[in-house]
């Protein structure tokens, strides 16, 4: 690299430092308040940082996640990171955990008995693990006193979501009209067979 790196305006540097220090994503308003600057100025600073931390320019990339802004490592450095830290970034989820997490994510807030009812089996150990890993948290009580759960910012962050709105409509996984038609047809055939 022969060019000299350019100086960066003070506000952008301050925002960069705050994002570096914070383990949670920082919302625009929080950044503006801490920097004693307007949101417009902070937005401009973030745009500058996005350019500075674009893939290929930095091993640290700027991301909008979990209702705010945060730095993450560039995936290109993942092999080296795995060698250095000798553990994967997040353990993968078992099917039971993934299913429990999906139910909490879509129905929040939801209680353990409700999760068990939908899954048809107890969700106790999956809930405990998800709590432990900071993906879900307690969110008060249902009207019957059962503790209800919701997903955390950590969940949004690790799953690359800006907000829960980015989750696709759950109805998209319902059986298609074709599938239903197929079922109906088989039903008819079976009915005829029975009659005959």
């Amino acid at each position, binding site marked *: 690299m022969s060019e000299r790196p350019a100086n960066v305006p003070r506000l952008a540097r301050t925002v960069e430092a705050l994002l570096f220090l914070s383990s949670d994503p920082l919302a625009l308003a929080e950044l503006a308040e801490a920097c004693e600057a307007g949101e417009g100025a902070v937005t401009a600073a973030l745009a500058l940082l996005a350019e500075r931390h674009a893939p290929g320019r930095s091993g640290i990339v700027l991301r909008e996640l979990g209702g705010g802004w945060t730095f993450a490592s560039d995936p290109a450095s993942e092999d080296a990171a795995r060698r250095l830290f000798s553990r994967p970034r997040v353990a993968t989820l078992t099917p039971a955990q993934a*299913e429990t997490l*999906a139910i909490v994510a879509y129905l929040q807030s939801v209680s353990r008995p409700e999760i068990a009812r939908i899954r048809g089996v107890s969700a106790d150990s999956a809930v405990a693990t998800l709590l432990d890993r900071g993906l879900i948290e307690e969110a008060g009580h249902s009207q019957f*006193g059962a503790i209800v759960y919701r997903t955390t910012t950590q969940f949004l962050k690790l799953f690359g979501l800006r907000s829960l709105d980015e989750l696709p409509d759950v109805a998209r996984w319902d059986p298609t009209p074709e599938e239903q038609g197929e079922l109906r047809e088989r039903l008819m055939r079976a009915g005829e067979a029975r009659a005959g």
Partner: protein
Amino acid sequence: MSIARLELDLEVFTGPFDLLLTLVLREEIDLLELSLADVVLAYLDHLEARGELELESATEFIVLIAALLELKSRLMLLGEDDEELDIEPEQAAEELLARMLDARRYRAAAGHLGALLEAERGHRFREAPLPPGLRRTVLAPAAGSEHPDALGAAIGRLLAMAPEISLRHVSVPRVAVAERLALLRGLLRRGSFSFEEAVRGADRMTVAVTLFALLELYKRGEADWDQGESFGEIDVHRPAAAPAGALSLAGPAAASA
């Protein structure tokens, strides 16, 4: 393999499991005529043939068979307490269908979340404590700053009973074993009687408790029985050498069902 494709060859039905479910839900197959035990056996055969247990499909199977069992038990218990039933069979069938759809939906959603996580695989986040100079100081709150009512309210919330999982459809009249014992002893005094006589007009629960009382009498050596053929009359009588005074020795059997 999805459990839906499990091939069944039963007395009342031949075909895949999902079709069976559909027919049951549409009431084209009478659940009362369907031996669920045979469905379980077919599944176990299938497992044995495959030689491995696939947790996903095993869970699915257990969910579905449990739902069918519940539905069937509701149908079987339809009786004099009809008006007490708060869930009609059609409604139960609807519930089963909704539950299957829900389970399917969230399993797919779980797959979606898994894909999201996979796509994020390369991104890691910094997890370092704040430098000591920046750590937040936590001040002790002033005396009296919390209100005791908050504690009472918390206890009140914890006292709230969750709505009981309604077992009303499995209505359980309380039948005392002692009462049935007394009845059987009364009949025995006459010499012999048929079991049918002892339970004429009684509900299922009473029949069950009477049978239990009869077993108790047998254990104590107060009664014996013969049954000429399967499902035939059960003839109850005093054992050949009934201990003298046995009738009065029997202690109070206070158990109730």
